[in-house]
């Protein structure tokens, strides 16, 4: 339903009232913003010493390379792993053999119900023995498992969204289940699933920030190093810069998802959210 069914084109009195509301809201927003800036200024958050870090080449390099790049690396590795995990267990869930279907379903349900942070802490301790990169891999493995389970459900929804006629025709010409899945259903399902995969990328990227609890490298870790340094002591500016970086990257990914949706899944727009079911949260 489009929004302008909810309210009529305003007449003169309503238009005046709306203008009044608009002005009040605008004034309120500006006032809040001004107060926030004033308070931060009072606490010296706008001093150049606190912001100078972000234009110093060494620190910028560290922030972008050790921070952002590392985070992107973790997220990318996790997503690739998650796609593999999702394919394996998604296909498993669709199997005709109960001994494959039931364990796959249990694995998927388990990893969807457990918080990512819990997985990260456990994996960190589990890998802890003589592994130099245990924090990095703890984050990657935990994210792989969690997003993999989500993608398994998405795969299932995607395959169920492929028109039934496709698989019926494939069976009619004598293909076996394995071939039908591999040659006919999967390629079409993947096209439909692309936006969902991108949105899981965004989720994975946001969740890499949790790595700070297991001392994993990445953007939040570098941010902590910067603001704990007694020379700077600049929590608020640092968190602000970090937030801007995260939001920018995520917005770019969203744009990518929208473009992919238009290009590839134009004909068949399935309601993935409903198909995924209530247990698959989009975070």
């Amino acid at each position: 339903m489009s929004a302008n069914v909810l309210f009529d084109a305003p007449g003169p009195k309503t238009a005046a009232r709306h203008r009044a509301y608009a002005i009040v809201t605008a004034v309120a927003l500006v006032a809040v913003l001004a107060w926030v800036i004033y308070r931060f200024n009072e606490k010296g958050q706008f001093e150049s010493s606190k912001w100078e870090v972000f234009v110093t080449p060494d620190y910028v390099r560290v922030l972008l390379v050790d921070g952002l790049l590392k985070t992107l690396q973790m997220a990318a590795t996790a997503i690739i792993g998650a796609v593999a995990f999702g394919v394996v267990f998604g296909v498993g869930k669709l199997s005709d053999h109960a001994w494959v279907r039931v364990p796959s379903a249990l694995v998927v349900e388990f990893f969807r119900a457990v918080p990512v942070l819990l997985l990260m802490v456990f994996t960190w301790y589990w890998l802890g023995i003589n592994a130099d990169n245990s924090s990095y891999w703890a984050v990657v493995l935990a994210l792989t498992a969690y997003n993999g389970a989500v993608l398994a459900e998405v795969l299932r929804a995607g395959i169920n969204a492929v028109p039934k006629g496709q698989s019926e025709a494939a069976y009619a010409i004598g293909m076996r289940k394995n071939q039908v899945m591999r040659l006919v259903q999967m390629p079409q399902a993947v096209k439909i699933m692309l936006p969902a995969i991108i949105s899981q990328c965004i989720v994975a990227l946001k969740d890499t920030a949790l790595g700070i609890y297991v001392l994993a490298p990445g953007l939040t870790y570098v941010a902590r190093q910067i603001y704990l340094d007694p020379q700077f002591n600049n929590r608020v500016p640092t968190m602000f810069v970090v937030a801007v970086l995260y939001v920018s990257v995520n917005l770019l990914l969203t744009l990518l998802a929208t473009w992919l949706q238009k290009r590839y899944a134009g004909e068949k727009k399935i309601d993935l959210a409903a198909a995924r079911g209530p247990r698959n949260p989009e975070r």
Partner: protein
Amino acid sequence: MTAITDNFDLYLRGFGYTIALFVVSGIGSLLLGTFLVAMRVGPIAIMRSAAAVYVTVVRNTPLVVVFAFFAFAAPMLGITFGFLDVEIGQFEFSSLFGSAVVSLTLYTSTFVCEALRSGINAVPLGQAEAARAIGLTFGGTMTQVVLPQAFRASVPPLASVQIALLKNTSVAAVFGIAEAVYQMRALTNNYASERTVIFVCFAAGYVVLVELLSFAANRIERRWRIA
């Protein structure tokens, strides 16, 4: 197994905090989310943009960063929760709890807003047209006709958002609240050899809570099903 059996009170206390965070933030996010969606679809352009900007920015920020903002920046703005000092049995709800609840509410309300918006879009066009036809204002249309039906249609996405909130309460561990994941890390540190058992027990706790919530959501959805 001794890790859990000897420290069962810590185990329960951890989940107690989890549930407390979930309940308070859940209610808060539903309220704030409803308010946001009303702004989002309303007649006043500036409110629409403001809500849209807020939702987009907060949705794309990691929850840890939202928490961090509240832990560091809010006190500078004078928003401390020093007045909060409730004690119920073994549980202490102090300023840390207050800021955790606010962070979770602000973050989850954006997802609630989007879930409700999808619900509103699912309400048949004719309903709103009929409401206009009998002369209801925007406020009346929303409260009497659209929102009640929208809530019904948004139960599945809302349920998934609340389940996500339950799992997101774990992030409070990073900021000092002694909830389930915090206790799990503490126990694993002290009983390093039993870490798998500890993990399974805590995971089981979460699975139980998530299943309960799912089950409740399913029942609600079935009862409120329109067609």
